[in-house]
């Protein structure tokens, strides 16, 4: 009893509200969404369970979308590959250009850079010896989305009141993994005021995973997750969101704090590039660029609570794009 009181006091003080917001945007940092394939699909499920005894449920999904051929590395850069000699004895410098004259020579449409995204979602719930209420909606859509919409979206509320020896374990995580080669910036942004200073968007390679896990004997857990990476315009930022809220339940004996262990995390490894202009001998030579890696960010955050948990809230958002909302 003494020990329980200490734990209770500890988490009443420490875990009241944790909100995490990660925003990535800037000259060198920008995930570019990928446009939908001509054929689009959608999956939507709603689950409602109110039971005593044993309940198990699980969800697993992976969505991959590529602008070119999936899983065929290396990714192809956008622009017309050409070569420059910036002086009499200068060495050859290959690079990429969007110069219309070069397009006229090569006789092909301006090649766009290759972008590929993988998104994953996983969820498991196992409850024994208790009363469980489980409500979940999940929607998957491969169509273009705008800000405020997600390609994968989940909402769930799980309330568990364990009996003698009753436990519920649950884990959930959502992942977005985007890689993009250098691609042309023209005609990719709808906003007429969002001028692009460079004819190319630099390459990127970003992966973000967030989620939670809980092992409770009593408590109510609500989570919401979503990822967005399919859009017709680069105006719409790529996003991942994950929200968890844990609190107690109100029973016949009144309100009781949640009891057990809860943790939530976000891990990110972000790598962004810049466009380096190719030196030219003559001003009228086509302008060329080469992508170079310019930024690397590793991020990991985990919050955990164990014991009597009065409230546990963690809100994690990841946005990356040419324009944030």
């Amino acid at each position, binding site marked *: 009893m003494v020990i329980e009181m200490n734990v209770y006091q500890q988490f009443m003080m420490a875990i009241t509200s944790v909100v995490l917001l990660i925003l990535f945007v800037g000259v060198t940092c920008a995930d570019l969404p990928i446009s939908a394939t001509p054929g689009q699909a959608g999956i939507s499920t709603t689950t409602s369970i109110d039971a005593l005894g044993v309940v198990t449920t699980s969800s697993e999904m992976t969505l991959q979308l590529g602008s070119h051929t999936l899983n065929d590395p290396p990714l192809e850069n956008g622009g*017309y*590959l*050409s*070569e*420059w*000699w*910036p002086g*009499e004895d200068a060495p*050859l410098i*290959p690079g990429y*250009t969007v110069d219309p*004259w*070069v397009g*006229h*020579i*090569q*006789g092909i449409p301006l090649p766009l850079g290759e972008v590929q995204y993988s998104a994953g979602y996983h969820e498991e719930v196992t409850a024994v010896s208790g009363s469980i209420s489980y409500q979940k909606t999940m929607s998957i859509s491969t169509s273009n989305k705008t800000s405020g919409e997600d390609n994968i979206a989940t909402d769930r509320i799980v309330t568990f009141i364990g009996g003698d020896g009753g436990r519920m374990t649950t884990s959930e995580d959502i992942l977005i993994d985007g890689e993009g080669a250098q691609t042309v910036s023209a005609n990719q942004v709808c906003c007429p005021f969002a001028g692009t200073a460079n004819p190319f968007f630099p390459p990127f390679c970003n992966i973000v995973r967030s989620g939670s896990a809980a092992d409770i004997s009593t408590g109510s857990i609500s989570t919401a997750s979503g990822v967005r990476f399919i859009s017709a315009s680069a105006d719409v930022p790529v996003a991942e969101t994950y929200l968890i809220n844990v609190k107690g339940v109100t029973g016949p004996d009144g309100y009781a704090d949640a009891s057990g262990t809860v943790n939530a995390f976000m891990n990110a490894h972000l790598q962004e590039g810049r466009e380096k202009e190719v030196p*030219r*001998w*003559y001003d*009228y*030579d*086509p302008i060329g660029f080469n992508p170079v890696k310019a930024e690397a960010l590793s991020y990991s955050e985990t919050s955990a609570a164990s014991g009597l948990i009065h409230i546990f809230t963690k809100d994690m958002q990841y946005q990356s794009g040419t324009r944030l909302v």
Partner: protein
Amino acid sequence: MQTSVGDYPHRSRVRIIVILVLLVLLLLWTVPVTAADIEIAVDGDISNWAFTPGTTNIDSTNITLNVSSISSTWTVSVKDGMDFNKTPGTVGRMAESDAVGAYTGTKVLGTAMTVAGPTEPTKTIGSSVVLSGSNQVIESGLTPVTGLPLPLTISQPVSISDQVLGGGHRYQVIVTFIAFAEGGPEPVVSGIVPAEGITGTTVTVTNLSGSNFLPHSTAVLNRTGFSDINLTVTGVTTPTSMTGTFNLVGAGVGLWDVTVTNPDGRTGTKPQLFWIKYPSAPTISFFTPLSGARGATKNIGVGGAGFQNGVAVKFTKGASVINAAVSQVTSGTIEATITIPSDGPTGLWVLTVTNNDGQSASRSNAFTVT
């Protein structure tokens, strides 16, 4: 060949130096190139040199050459009989002997002896010539002549203070007259400086070198399909050199022959000796695409500067060559098409751009055949 000699006694111990001019005609004979073609005869002596103290003495004398030639072209030249290897324009040279006539050596005066040509405007070659060890033409003709008098003026400035003069000695000068008639050698062109010029400009030729040039020789740049470009002679033509200017305004670029024509109509040509160029060579600063497959036809684009209409583009790898069909040219861009041989070697090829004046630029590893 005919030689006249003048000699000078000099006494340093008296205040008034008296130069006793003793003209001795050592040798008087006629040497025609072909016996019946030409002969010359000297009428008169080199004489009347005398020193006046305290000044530079320029004594002159007149002699007359009588030239007879049955050939249509002929020339009469003079040279310093004392030193056939003397550099043109160098100082005069005298043979020195003592009072009894014993030869004691040669003396070089401070000023060279000159020979002025005849006065007839149609025959004279112009100003006087300075005697040298080489033949210097004083007269030439394009028609046969009989007994043509050629009065010549020979002058030799001698200073009383000339350190080479010794008392009690006599000094001689020797002038050799040489006649050539038709049958002389044709001109030979061996070189030209500069060997190139920029189209649209005037180039000054400082030395069109060769041999057997004559005073009335002409020179041209010539090339099939183009009008000749005449050399405007600006200096004295020697047997081995001509100078002048070429007006290259409107001249076609490329390699031109250089032809010298002597008054007798004989010509000498050295092919492709003079290069008329554009002001600058082409340069390559950009190329696209980087590669092409064997058997494929590819459009290519070259960026740079100095490209001219008629420019040629090719790719080489070892002995293999791919010539491009040029379709569009600006000063800074070339558009062309290539067909890569299906059996051509794979790997990196060299890009070469050559203007029609022959100036070119190359870039290695510019194109990859896959």
